[in-house]
Structure formats: structure tokens, C-alpha cells
């Protein structure tokens, strides 16, 4: 039953992250949604993934706050005056909602006759220990034996993103230290 409580919290947080205007509250709601989904993982017996989800969600929320402060979006959206509903703004919202509902409907069509609630319960081994996705040895073996290519593609992607991010975010001309200090002072 606790599973559904976490699901309800997640759903409320996701709705808030989507529809609230204030980016600060949206980021907070995104964090709560991540924690809620981690809690759902915990209740269905995916403890490893739950911990990873909590760590990633917290880091993502912190980075969102840092960057929104840096880019000025934290202040601007809070200080923005209330405007009457703009049809140009409502149109993509309505379109997105329709596409989202269609997405949910397609998923419902696919899974409505296959779900068995008992499958969502945590699985315990004969000795009471965790099995399946919580068995780190089995996870590591599966990763190394059957999904090594996926791991390597992910590693390469992260490496390219790291290097590419540094290149994209570089200054145009890298001046010497003296010029740099002078340029900053003059700007």
C-alpha cells in the first residue's frame, strides 16, 4: 500500500513541476518527483536503482538551482508580473497535454491485460537475501557479459559530452593572464 502513497506523491510533484510558473518551485518539485520515484523503486524491490535515482535527482536539482541563479532565471520568473492567459502560450500547453494523454493511452493499451500486482512486490531469495536486480554480483556479471557494448557506448557518450561541453562552453579567444585580468576589469 505504501507503494501507492509514493506514487501519489510522485504524481503530485510531477504535475507541479510541469504546470507551476515559478522555476524555483518547478525544480523543487522535480527533486521531489525523483525522490518519489526512487521510493517507488524501493518498494518494488529495486534498492540499487533507488539509491542511484536519489543521488542523481539530488545532484540534478542542485545543479538546476546553481544554473538558474547564474542565468538569472531564478529571479526573472519570480519577479515576472501576472499576465492574463495568452492564447499563444496556451496552444502548446494544450497540444502537449493532448500528446501526453495519447502517450498514456497507448501505454495503457499495451499493459492493461498483462500486469499482475504480485509481480511488483520485492523478491527475496531462499535465505532471505536479495536476488534479481538487487544482487550486485548478478548485475555486474550481466553488465560485463551481455551488455558490455551498452556500457561502452554510455562511457563513450559521457566522455564525449565531457570534452564537448568544455569545448562548447569555452571563451572565444583565450587571452594571457594579464589581458584576461585587464579585460575583466574593463568589462
Amino acid at each position: 500500500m505504501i507503494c501507492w502513497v509514493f506514487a501519489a506523491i510522485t504524481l503530485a510533484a510531477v504535475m507541479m513541476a510541469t504546470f507551476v510558473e515559478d522555476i524555483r518551485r518547478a525544480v523543487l518539485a522535480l527533486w521531489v518527483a525523483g525522490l518519489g520515484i526512487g521510493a517507488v523503486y524501493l518498494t518494488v524491490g529495486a534498492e540499487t536503482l533507488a539509491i542511484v535515482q536519489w543521488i542523481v535527482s539530488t545532484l540534478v536539482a542542485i545543479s538546476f538551482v546553481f544554473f538558474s541563479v547564474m542565468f538569472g532565471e531564478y529571479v526573472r520568473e519570480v519577479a515576472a508580473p501576472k499576465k492574463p492567459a495568452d492564447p499563444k502560450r496556451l496552444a502548446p500547453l494544450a497540444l502537449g497535454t493532448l500528446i501526453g494523454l495519447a502517450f498514456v493511452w497507448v501505454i495503457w493499451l499495451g499493459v492493461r491485460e498483462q500486469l499482475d500486482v504480485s509481480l511488483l512486490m520485492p523478491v527475496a531469495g531462499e535465505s532471505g537475501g536479495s536476488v534479481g536486480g538487487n544482487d550486485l554480483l548478478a548485475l555486474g556479471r550481466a553488465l560485463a557479459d551481455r551488455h558490455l557494448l551498452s556500457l561502452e557506448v554510455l562511457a563513450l557518450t559521457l566522455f564525449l559530452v565531457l570534452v564537448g561541453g568544455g569545448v562548447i562552453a569555452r571563451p572565444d579567444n583565450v587571452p594571457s593572464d594579464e589581458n584576461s585580468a585587464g579585460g575583466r576589469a574593463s568589462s
Partner: protein
Amino acid sequence: MMMLLAGVVGAMGLVCILSRRTMLGLMVGVQLLVLGATMMFVLAGIVSGARIEGHLFGLLITLGGVAQLVGGYALAIRLFYLKGRIRMSELRSLKK
């Protein structure tokens, strides 16, 4: 019902992407989409009996979402460096 929740999370991410006008709002939407996709893989793995595969792909998608976030931040920093502000309409200027 749990899979429906995953679908709703992904759908709300889609709504967020389409309706928000700021860079960070867009990235919040993408993160919601990634959360929904991760949850879908994990639950699908559980109900289909391939528990480990579901967990592994959930892990890979989560880390892929982090890579997407870093790419988005890099673009935002570049735009902020060039223009002093971030407007979605000015993202195309990065191609020049």
C-alpha cells in the same frame, strides 16, 4: 497502474517541453521524460521476468540523462557567454 504512472511522468515531461519557454524549463521537462522512461524500463523488466535487464537499462538511461543535462548546460553557458542572456529563440545563433 504503476506503468501508467510512468507513462504520466513521461507525458508530463512532454507537456513541459512543449509549453515552457526557458532553457531550464525545457531541461526540467527532459528530466521528467527521462524519469518516466527509466521507470517504464524497470517496471517492464519486473513484470516480464527480466528483472536484471530492466535495472541495467534503467541505470543506463539515468546516466544518459545526466549526459544530456551536461550538454544542455554547455549550450546554455555558451549562449550566456555570447549574448549575456538565454533566450530559446537565440539558440540557432550558435550554429554560426
